[in-house]
């Protein structure tokens, strides 16, 4: 079972190691900053996973192993090397587009969504639908990635997008855990910690590119795993994927009205609020399901019985259809129904009990 203290430890370990590595890297000068940022995040993730006791298995047969052994290292390597290769902008964009397109197939590889595990043609998604869905996922990731990278540039804050992504990843982590995939969800926390740690000490305007790339990919990977392999709802996954984009909103406010730090604070507040709302909804859904499973939730029979008690009270104490009763009934999900629906025998037995 997920252990909150252990998860907090892993987040803290990732944050501290990543921040320390980024600070040391900054002391070395501006040259190769992308490499240092990617390395700081990678070290932070490793430290967090170690604290969490996560050891990915080789060969990576499951989504979470492919996520940690292929997807994250791949994207960290790309983000570290791209700026230092001196490639033209179009080539860099093409490389990122290819990387974005590869994330969903890597996560879903071998699953019954895309593979014919029960004989030819048994995959959940037929070939054309599969291509369309994977292409859409790749395009969505690429668009979000570019938007967040652009936000970082125009805002002049190296922290905004990575921190927004860290917040969304932490929320996604909680939601995936609440959706019946605890071991997958908890792996998001070290990533969030590492992103936040590296961003925390990042001061260079326009920096944070590596964090934005790694964070965007990690967020999609986490949500896709939760949806495809756990039972994360599509609406929650979509909302969490879009939440970091809210950090763009403060840029719509005319410059001069808000200082840069206030814009970033507002951006993070918006992202955190949206993320918290999705986490709260997912937690509520989880609570309702667990209550129903454990018999604590009101079944139809319970509701009818409670409703009969209200009717009984009405009969004994006079009119109870006031606003207070209705509010109380609404809170307890009791449906008020006419007393005539119950025969005298049921009412008397209920009264006895």
């Amino acid at each position, binding site marked *: *079972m997920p252990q909150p203290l252990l998860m907090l430890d892993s987040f803290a370990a990732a944050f501290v190691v990543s921040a320390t590595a980024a600070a040391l890297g900054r002391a070395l000068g501006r040259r190769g900053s992308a490499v240092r940022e990617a390395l700081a995040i990678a070290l932070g993730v490793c430290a967090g996973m170690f604290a969490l006791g996560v050891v990915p*298995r080789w060969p990576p*047969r*499951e*989504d*979470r192993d492919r996520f940690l052994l292929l997807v994250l290292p791949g994207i960290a390597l790309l983000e570290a090397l791209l700026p230092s290769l001196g490639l033209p902008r179009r080539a860099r964009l093409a490389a990122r587009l290819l990387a974005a397109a590869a994330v969903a197939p890597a996560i879903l590889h*071998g*699953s*019954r*969504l895309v593979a014919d*595990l*029960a004989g030819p043609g048994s995959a959940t998604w037929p070939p054309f639908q599969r291509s369309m869905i994977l292409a859409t996922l790749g395009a969505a990731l690429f668009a979000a990635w570019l938007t967040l990278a652009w936000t970082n540039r125009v805002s002049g804050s190296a922290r905004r997008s990575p921190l927004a992504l860290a917040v969304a990843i932490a929320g996604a982590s909680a939601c995936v855990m609440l959706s*019946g*995939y*605890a*071991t*997958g969800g908890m792996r998001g926390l070290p990533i969030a910690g590492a992103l936040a740690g590296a961003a925390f000490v990042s001061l260079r305007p326009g920096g944070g590119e590596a964090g934005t790339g790694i964070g965007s990919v990690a967020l999609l990977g986490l949500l896709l*795993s939760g949806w*495809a*392999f*756990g*039972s994360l709802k599509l609406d929650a996954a979509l909302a969490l994927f879009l939440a970091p984009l809210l950090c763009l909103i403060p840029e719509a406010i005319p410059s001069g009205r808000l200082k840069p730090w206030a814009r970033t604070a507002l951006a993070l507040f918006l992202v955190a609020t949206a993320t918290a709302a999705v986490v709260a909804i997912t937690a509520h859904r989880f609570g309702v*399901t*667990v209550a129903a*499973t454990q018999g604590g939730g009101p079944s139809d029979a319970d509701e009818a019985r409670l409703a009969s008690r209200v009717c009984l009270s009405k009969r004994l104490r006079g009119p109870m259809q006031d606003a207070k009763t209705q509010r109380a009934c609404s809170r307890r999900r009791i449906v008020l129904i006419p007393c005539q629906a119950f025969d005298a025998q049921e009412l008397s037995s209920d009264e006895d009990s």
Partner: protein
Amino acid sequence: MKLNRAFATTWGLLAALVLSTPSPASADDYTIDPAHTSVAFRVNHGGFASIYGLFQDVSGKFSVDAQDPSASEFDVTIKVDSIRTGVDKRDQHLKSPDFFNAAQFPTIRFVSKSASKEGDGLKVEGDLTLHGETKPVTLVLTGGKVGEFPKGTARTGYDATATIKLSDFGMDGMGALGDEVVIMIGFEGTKS
């Protein structure tokens, strides 16, 4: 002439004898009858007590050679999605990658590699593929009664119990469950 007739008669009698001798029994092929097959398991929860569950979708085929038990073969497939423990939320969680990862590994399969006589039943050694890992497992099958049920449908059946370790199959990611799982199997097959 008399000698020829006697020779022919002798060979004729020998041939008749050979043809009338029952040939060695060949293996009987059976298809698993899902209506009379149960795969149950028991696993400890957090050191408190055992949880019991069932797999409701079991299929496969087997052949039993009464004369030569080593020629017997078993191939059984279980659908992970058919797991039932009586709690829907728990069943859903068991299907997730925290345990079985039904989306990636939708079936559990046992394929025998060798069989031998063991008491009144059979000792079957084979490969169990679970959660994408294949490990050797030995089953001791008891029973083996052959009969007709309903009338006209030849069938046989066996019971078996085995203990496996979740860690052997890479299913030890969640600490809530004990490592050892006791699997109780009862299966019948109708003659193909």
